[in-house]
């Protein structure tokens, strides 16, 4: 029996900050069928309800390590780059890879953290070269360069980030944030598709 699903397509028109759904192409584990190991690896109610995370939990160890990496890169605010700027790195990588779902979640978080909805929208509408003000433009362009193949992240990007006021610890947050979304985007884009809220 095939585990591949073909949901009725209901994709959004384009990039948006509005909340989107996500429909899996591969069958998630049903909530009732989760083992104790899988429940523990989901880390929290929010992921328990998500078809995306209940799909990834088919490999619980890999999901758990992924989630713990994600949490520290984006939510450890004891030092380093402010939250909104980390979400800009995530959003820029998602914009370049074309992950409409990830871009929707992380641009909305950038707006929530900064109150700068119009600048965030520029990143979605006009792409990573839009004038977002500093340090956002430097962060978006560095994140985009790191997303490209072959890697285009260079001394010039580091110089621009430093001129925009980032120190090396902040720059490591940009590198980690953009790199992490090169992981997340590929899973989201290849295991299912975004959908408009019904």
């Amino acid at each position, binding site marked *: 029996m095939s585990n591949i699903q073909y949901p009725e397509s209901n994709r959004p028109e384009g990039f948006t900050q509005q909340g989107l759904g996500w429909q899996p192409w591969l069958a998630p584990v049903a909530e009732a069928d989760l083992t104790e190991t899988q429940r523990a690896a989901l880390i929290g109610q929010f992921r328990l309800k998500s078809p995306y995370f209940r799909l990834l939990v088919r490999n619980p160890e890999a999901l758990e390590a992924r989630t713990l990496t994600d949490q520290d890169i984006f939510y450890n605010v004891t030092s380093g780059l402010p939250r909104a700027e980390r979400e800009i790195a995530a959003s820029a990588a998602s914009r370049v890879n074309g992950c409409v779902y990830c871009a929707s979640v992380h641009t909305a978080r950038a707006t929530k953290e900064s109150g700068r909805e119009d600048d965030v929208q520029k990143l979605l509408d006009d792409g990573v070269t839009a004038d977002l003000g500093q340090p956002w433009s430097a962060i978006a362009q560095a994140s985009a360069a790191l*997303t490209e193949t072959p890697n285009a992240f260079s001394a010039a990007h580091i110089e621009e980030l430093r001129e925009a006021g980032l120190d090396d610890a902040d720059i490591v947050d940009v590198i980690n944030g953009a*790199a992490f979304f090169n992981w997340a985007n590929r899973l989201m884009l290849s295991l299912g598709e975004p959908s408009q809220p019904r």
Partner: protein
Amino acid sequence: MTDIIDILTGIEPGSTLDEIRRTREQARDNAQRSFEVLFEPEDPGTFSLAERYAVAAYTVVLQASASPAARFYTELLEDEVSPELAAAVAELAKADRCEGPYGEYKEAGLAAESAPGPTVSYAQRPDFVSERLATALEHAHLLSLHPRDAEATHLRRLEDAGWNADDIVTLSQLISFLAFQIRVVDGLLALKEAA
């Protein structure tokens, strides 16, 4: 304790970048743990270590042939499996390198931004590469360079080539994790040089 990112970047204990990485200890530890659960699993089950290392070497050479990670994963495949398979996989990756990310948008409003590009087929391939592995390498090319071209039918092809649902998730994680790891390495190396 071994940390692959430190090894690949040459970050020394007590250096500035080591101290910065350790302010994100949970991320540092779990990037390493991700490597371990994907490449050194207690029980690899039906997704063999040979297949894992072959997909890894292909993925990294395809995206980052100049990175120390390319040599690392190629040597892992040579040492743990066979030099012949490593050579065959590197040959496929080198022949199909190109700039990314590209791909066609399926969202109607983004059609003007679509950038179509090559999809590889390894129906013709070296003897050392099985049909099941060839399908995984085709999937690695898709995810590495043009993930927005992905469709449900790509997963069906994996399934038809013998990949079960759990292994499709592990394969997807393995390829996608490497996209992260090689970018962290590239980013940290650039920062180290700009010190």
